[in-house]
């Protein structure tokens, strides 16, 4: 009788301490971004700001290239997502629907490239960009992000595609549709949840990516948020904590919004990835 009461209590306690532990940095980030400079390093720290101020946000938006970084990040993540989902959908379709020699080997090979650590690829990729004459451009970064996001997207979309029965497409073909028509009318609507979750994964990956951006791009006008904000606010002598926290909050907002609306697709993506190996 006693243990029956105790069990849920302990479970709840554990769960909530975990939630608190994980969310503490986020909460502290928000709190810090709202404190005036004078309150920042006070000991003991104030858990709730005595005076709430938006001056750091204002400074960030008016006095720094934050908005340029933000725009770059949006362009970067959006373009990468479009490339990856477009190529991934076509690739997954042919991997699933067409029988050709070496089909399975090809799929495994693609997965293998996903397993390679990105640092291994980064220098060759940089040299290629230089040779192509597109180094230090946003486009080079889009290409780079596409190369590392595509393998996983392909596998994710492949497992979604495998869930769509062949006969659905066959029925459309018999009913008079062309292959492209059958794809548009029948496959695409069935694949849409898969496409959305793949797009989300890709967008988040590209939005948060740091290493490639650091190596491939070094001018302020084309830097995305991750590297732009860091190099701007962190120097060897000083870290602008208030601004950094304000920037971090604003960087997280798009992801939080996206997540709030499309959460169910994201979790279904996690499921689909595990269906087949």
């Amino acid at each position, binding site marked *: 009788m006693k243990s029956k009461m105790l069990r849920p209590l302990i479970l709840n306690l554990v769960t909530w301490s975990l939630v608190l532990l994980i969310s503490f940095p986020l909460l502290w980030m928000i709190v810090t971004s709202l404190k005036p400079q004078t309150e920042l390093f006070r000991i003991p720290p104030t858990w709730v700001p005595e005076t709430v101020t938006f001056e750091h946000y204002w400074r960030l938006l008016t006095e720094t290239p934050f908005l340029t970084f933000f725009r770059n990040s949006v362009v970067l993540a959006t373009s990468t997502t479009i490339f990856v989902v477009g190529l991934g959908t076509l690739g997954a379709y042919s991997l699933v629907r067409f029988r050709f020699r070496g089909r399975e080997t090809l799929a495994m090979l693609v997965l293998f490239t996903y397993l390679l650590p990105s640092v291994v690829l980064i220098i060759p990729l940089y040299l290629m960009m230089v040779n192509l004459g597109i180094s230090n451009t946003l486009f080079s970064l889009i290409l780079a992000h596409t190369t590392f996001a595509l393998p996983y997207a392909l596998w994710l979309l492949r497992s979604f595609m495998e869930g769509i029965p062949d006969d659905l497409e066959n029925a459309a073909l018999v009913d*008079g549709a062309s292959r492209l028509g059958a794809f548009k009318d029948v496959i695409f609507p069935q694949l849409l949840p898969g496409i959305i979750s793949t797009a989300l994964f890709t967008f988040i990956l590209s939005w948060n990516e740091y290493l490639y951006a650091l190596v491939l791009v070094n001018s302020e006008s084309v830097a995305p948020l991750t590297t732009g904000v860091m190099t701007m606010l962190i120097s060897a002598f000083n870290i602008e904590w208030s601004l950094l926290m304000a920037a971090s909050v604003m960087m997280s907002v798009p992801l939080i919004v996206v997540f709030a609306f499309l959460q169910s697709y994201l979790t279904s993506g996690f499921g689909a990835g595990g269906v087949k190996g």
Partner: protein
Amino acid sequence: MANVSFTNVRKSFGDFTALESLDLEIHDGEFVALLGPSGCGKSTTLRMLAGLEFPTSGDISIGGRVVNDLAPGKRDIAMVFQSYALYPHMTVGENIAYPLKKRGLKKPERDEAVRRAAELLQLEPLLNRKPKQLSGGQQQRVALGRALVREPRVFLLDEPLSNLDAKLRSYMRAELIELHRRLGKTMVYVTHDQLEAMTMADRIVVMHGGRVQQFDTPDAVYNRPANRFVAGFIGTPPMNQIEGTVQGATFVVNSHRQPIKREAFAASLVDGPAVMGVRPEFVGIHDSGDGLPATVRLAENTGHETIVTLELPDGARIMSRVEAGRKLSVGQPVILRFDPAGIHLFEATENGARLNLDIPVAATLSQSA
């Protein structure tokens, strides 16, 4: 005219030959069933006719025109899939209208055609539902509706009833027969269920191991099976096959001498090993007298008949069909006598050909198409 012909069609998947040298001539308006055990190549045959698979060699034609290189949508066929393959994101109405839309019909014409099809299949109250909200039987009717809305020249059906329960299946059998009578279109129907093939088809293609074993009327397939496979596949229970030896005017099995009329069999029947085929209804069970001694192993009374399993001294099993309520106990020794009218002889090889010379009178039954 929508006759369908397969001329010397072969189909391999890599090294595996699914169909070897298929020759079929299906008449306009005929209801033909492709019947055989799972994996014998029925679906492959149908899918080649639909244009979803391509023959490795040979020609397929519809209405006298070779369609080998024609896309499925250009063959003027409609197909009902075993899984129904209804488009999950479209309503019932949109599903049925889809083939018309793909052929460029205007909305008012589409609506009218959908309405007619829905009326025929009693789908009117369901037109705005999604396939997921329908029962199996209703989904089946939607799949039929989508097939017949366009009035194609040939209907292809791949095990359309296999996902329904027994009661609904027998109801839909009657519906399909009625539909075929009303539309008068050529139908090619794949099934592994001999009851469906026997009751619905004008003619049956019995397939096995990638080959056509026999292509004939249900009556002929039952009464004059071309070989041992057909004899052993058609009928529940199927034809008994008893190994023995032909000696002059007798077939000898376990020292029992069954008289045979040599003139009723092909000249290729020579003295030596052969297989005698007898349907269970021609196996009489007696208490004494002349005949083949056997032991009763099982007597199953179905209410209108009794199916008896018997064992010969050498361990071979024989099935007999006798009247309901016949008293037989397990282990009881009996004497079997075969009705001479029901005796078939086959070559002793694994799928030996039947050697009976059939009396022409029976042919009047076979040409109903």
